[in-house]
């Protein structure tokens, strides 16, 4: 009896056992809703699935058939997209968030809400609006805009050279507001007196940003960086909004778009799973390197 009670109090009171209680919900859902389906999918990546009871083991055949230029293009596109979104979608929203956090800014509530609106727009609606904005006619908004700079009208969505630009532009439009929300919430945890004392020491806006905001926001920045890497490599919606599932010379083809084509359009679920596994491996390696680099696995450093 007594021993039992000790154990219970141990769980509740000692930092040694309590963490397991905290992570329990995750472990349960992980085992039930993730591990089983994932192992299933992993096995499928070595199979040719024809029907419910028509499955043949094909070894690495699915992985081998990934050695083609469509998949290379998809890899290259996803990598470039991730690079550009990281370059834009971290500093830009961070600066906006800092500005929006300032107590002096007039109408900041409105601006916050306005910048968040794009992510609410569904892919279909965004698709309609953007295909009209980047329409082929000479008078489409995009063509009218570049005309100001003396440029000839473009057929935007069927021009392989501007595809990446369009994707990054759409991503910026959709995700800036979301990243602002992350950064804003992070900014709330920075004690105001830190700024006050820095001001007394005579720090300017820029040095306050550099020496207080950035370091204290580091955990949130790492978070945004990590999910942006993941989101970049897993991007499909943006591409789908512009081109659906196929784009000229694969200029909008991403890894997940390729997965979708193979698994659902060609009905080749095994190959689709193989693509998923490769994607997972790539993102996992990049993320682990990056997280180690930022010392996320060490408790002291965060």
């Amino acid at each position, binding site marked *: 009896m007594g021993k039992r009670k000790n154990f219970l109090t141990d769980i*509740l009171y000692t930092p040694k056992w309590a963490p397991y209680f905290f992570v329990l919900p995750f472990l349960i859902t992980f085992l039930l809703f993730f591990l089983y389906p994932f192992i299933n999918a992993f096995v499928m990546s070595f199979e040719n*699935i*024809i029907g*419910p009871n028509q499955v043949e083991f094909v070894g690495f055949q699915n992985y081998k058939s990934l050695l083609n230029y469509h998949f290379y293009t998809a890899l290259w596109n996803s990598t470039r997209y991730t690079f550009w979104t990281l370059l834009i979608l971290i500093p830009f929203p961070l600066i906006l968030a800092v500005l929006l956090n300032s107590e002096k800014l007039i109408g900041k509530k409105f601006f916050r809400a306005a910048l968040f609106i794009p992510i609410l727009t569904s892919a279909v609606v965004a698709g309609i609006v953007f295909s009209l904005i980047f*329409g*082929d006619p000479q008078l489409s908004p995009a063509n009218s805009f570049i005309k100001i700079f003396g440029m000839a009208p473009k057929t935007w*969505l069927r021009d392989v050279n501007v595809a990446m630009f369009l994707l990054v532009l759409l991503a910026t439009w959709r995700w800036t507001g979301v990243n602002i929300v992350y950064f804003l919430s992070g900014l709330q945890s920075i004690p105001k007196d830190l700024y006050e004392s820095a001001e007394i020491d005579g720090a300017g806006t820029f040095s306050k940003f550099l020496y207080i905001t950035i370091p204290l926001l580091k955990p949130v920045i790492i978070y945004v960086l990590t999910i942006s890497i993941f989101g970049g490599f897993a991007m499909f919606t943006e591409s789908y909004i512009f081109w659906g599932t*196929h784009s*000229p010379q694969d200029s909008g083809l991403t890894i997940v778009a390729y997965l979708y084509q193979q698994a*659902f359009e060609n009905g080749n679920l095994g190959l689709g799973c193989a693509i998923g596994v490769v994607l997972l491996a790539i993102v996992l390696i990049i993320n682990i390197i990056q997280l180690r680099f930022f010392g996320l696995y060490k408790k002291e450093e965060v």
Partner: protein
Amino acid sequence: MKKFLSFLLVITLLMTTMLAGCGQKSPSSSANQGNSSNANSSTNTTTDLTLWTFVGLHAQMYNAAAKRWNETYPNQKINLKVVTYPYEDMHNKLLVALQSGVGVPDIADVELGRFPQFLKGTPQLADLTDLVAQDKDKYIESRLELYSKDGKLYGLPTHGGAVMAFYNKDILDKAGIDPSTIKTWDDFIAAGKIVKEKTGKPMLAVSQTAMWEFNTMIGQQGSDYFDQDGNVILDNDTNIKTLQFLHDMIYKDQIAVIPPGGQPDTTQAYGWIDKGNVAAVVMPFWFMSRFVSYMKDLKGKIIVEPAPIWKDENKYPTVGQGGTGTVVPSAGKHVDIAKKFLAFAKETKEANLEIWNTLGFDPPRWDVWPQLATDPGDNQYTQYFVNGKDIFKILYDSTKGNIVSLRSTQLSVTANDLMANQVLYKVLKANSATAEQALKAAANELRKDKNSGQ
């Protein structure tokens, strides 16, 4: 401690609701099944049928058919539940359901482009051959072949998709051209040059993101992407010559353009065509409904004519394109009655007339065409087109039901992607490769895919 207790309470509450949530399911679902089986054994013998489609108009047609069915067979009533899903999602959902064998609908519409994947291995679909057995010669034969495998039919066609020419009367009048004099593609180009000269407008909108015109032209000459054994013949002489012909229409004769949006059946192109920017489109029969829905300014200005043919070596008057095959998954609970209803809704002569009346499509059974030629009824289609009353007369006289379709194979999805986004992009849009180079490259890739046993 108090907080912790309250937390425990919350968790237990959650757990109980979760359990309740899981528990609730089984009785309700079995209740549903119970309902149908109960109903089966009781007075009316009503059968619940679920039908998935991706076209709202099809839903209307099926619902109307269900109503007629229940009047015709009062002892074998059905309770048809049509669910409309978006195109991509309906096919994905069906794929997942068929793969797991659980949760399949009784009947489903499957689009031509997605059909081959459902024919893989032993299809999980009921054999529909017997439904059309006694009417086989009355169907456009190629339409049935699209949905067949090893001599068995797995999908009932919805329409013929016969390609026709649609001319803008205003523009042709200005150029002084009578569209009924355009018989061959050479005539078409000659007329196009006059149109271009007199009005400055292009004669034809040529698709680059789809293959409507290319497929029409090679199909008329009896060519295809694959031969009857499934070998890749995409780079044969006919195809290369034809692609060159299309290329020249744009770059040499300068009488054709790629429409905004890349093909005539896009939201961008509708507005463009509607504003009278092009003299003609050569599109499948179902494009009529796009005219009616999206291009209201052109009402009373569009003349329908047979598609131009080739002077020599023409094998077929026109080509059927696009399509939807309606399937009955074999894992369904009521396969027999589903098949029977499907025949009632789509196979009979009456059903085929209804396909014209509600959907505005050319019925796949051409034996109703003569009837529609003499009496097409009065609907929005006959009212929209200049010669709306004569549509079926034109269709029947020019084809007699002899319409070819390009073969649909396991490689078709890949082939279509390569054609639109590599071949036509390079040859028609970017003008960066010759027809021969582009087609050879695509054909070789398809051969490689075929050998790797896709």
